């Protein structure tokens, strides 16, 4: 591997950009709650959360607390320009939508397509924690 940096630290995650539409999600994140959005008109969940449903365009979307569990759809471990390799991934939530994230606390046996994972909050630099996922 190209990485020769000694004493690697965990990748530092920047504070997420929060706007008025996403603020309820991040306020809940501070309380350790993982929220997704569901549409009352069509009944479908979506990700990332929007105030208008991307499936049917209804304005009747509501926040719903999710256990934050699902399976890895795909992943890639980044080795370039980083003090320590990290895994970016999509997780298919049990509610349906796919979520872009980082997998943490993994090893070669657990970082697999189809592996079950659960949300595990990771601190950021000066912002709310973010929804990383870890093997269960």
């Amino acid at each position, binding site marked *: *591997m*190209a990485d020769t940096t000694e004493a690697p630290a965990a*990748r530092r*995650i*920047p*504070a*997420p*950009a*929060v*706007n*008025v*539409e*996403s*603020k309820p999600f*991040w306020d809940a994140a501070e309380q350790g709650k993982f929220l997704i959005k569901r549409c009352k008109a069509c009944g*479908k*969940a*979506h*990700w*990332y*959360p*929007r*105030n*208008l*449903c*991307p*499936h*049917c*365009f209804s*304005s009747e979307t509501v926040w719903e607390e999710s256990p934050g569990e699902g399976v890895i*759809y*795909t*992943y*890639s*471990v*980044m*080795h*370039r320009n*980083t003090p320590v390799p*990290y895994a*970016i*991934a*999509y997780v*298919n939530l049990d509610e*349906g*939508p*796919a*979520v*872009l*994230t*980082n997998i943490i606390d993994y090893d070669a046996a657990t970082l697999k*397509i189809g592996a079950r994972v659960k949300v595990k909050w990771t601190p*950021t630099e*000066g*912002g*709310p924690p*973010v929804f990383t996922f870890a093997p269960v």
Partner: protein
Amino acid sequence: MSIKGKAYIAGVYEHPLRDAPNISTAQIHAECAKGALEDAGLTKDDIDGYFCAGDAPGFGAMSMADYMGLKLRHMDSTETGGSSYILHVGHAAQAIAEGKCSVALITLAGRPRQARMGGGGGRGGPPGGASDVPEAGFENIWGGSTHNTYGMCAMRHMHDYGTTAEQLAWIKVAASHHAQWNDHAFLRDVVTVEDVINSPMIADPLHRLDCCVVTDGGGAVIVTTPEIAKSLKRPLVKVIGAGEAPKGPRGGLDLDLTYSGAVWSGPIAFEEAGVTPADIKYASIYDSFTITVLMQLEDLGFCKKGEGGKFVADGNLISGVGKLPFNTDGGGLCNNHPTNRGGITKVIEAVRQARGEAHPKVQVPDPSLVLAHGTGGSLGTRHGAATLIMERE
């Protein structure tokens, strides 16, 4: 041909707010779209064309198309400041007159009053700027780059279809065989499958030699009328088909990263041109990574979905050796990738081939029909696909 009488205004909506601290810029765009649809008596699924300008948060039209869950076959983010939306009506009428779309949506939204109040209640990010790109807060925190988001596509393609690193490597090998004849190519050394799979891992499963080069540079294209073209002293290369389509998660259900927007842009272009993939003598295929080429070849119909690995192996993309010569300038993998945008060089080499002006070592014998195809953005998040078919007259 004229737009006169070819298009009608079916719906309009003006947002009622004059001070909007509590809704995002993306939401205002979407509420305006919803209002105009209701005014027209149409639904979101009727929209197949989308027009926006620089006020739309994100990357061109793609972030807002994804936010609204639009499935499009035409888009335009021409930016001319405040006049953009008048110009867009003209462009929409052209697109409708040409059959490129049938229901076009144009939106504008912004919240300049919130700038002085620290970003409309947000934390982190400039007011009305990055923080108002709707997906930014949920995606820009994961260390995503083209390398690892395309890596995720390759990983899933291997999982679903058994595609191998060696098969992907053949794409780079073919590009390097072409680049050796290009005096300007950034990388001119011929490489082997072993060279590629033994190069350092960048983002699993993509190695360094699966990645395109980073170069400066540029390009230009001139398009004109048949009359002017025939008055010039250059070979006649006629545009006979074009298709375009964005692809994104659109809410995240049934995510499938093993195909690209080429599954939509390709058939549109082939239908307009009245030809099939089997008729194409040369193809310029955007090659940001080897996986980009493989997926697009499948999606354009040069082989069946999932059989791209077999298709590209054993030199099938090498001019003079295989069935489908590709990127005979060496492409992005070896020649250049000016400002990380490879679309224009794909058109340029396809034109060289059609004219018979490619390097003699890579010139295809019968360049009567050529194709240029690209995807911009990321196949792993949201991207815009564009297909162009040209005929040597």
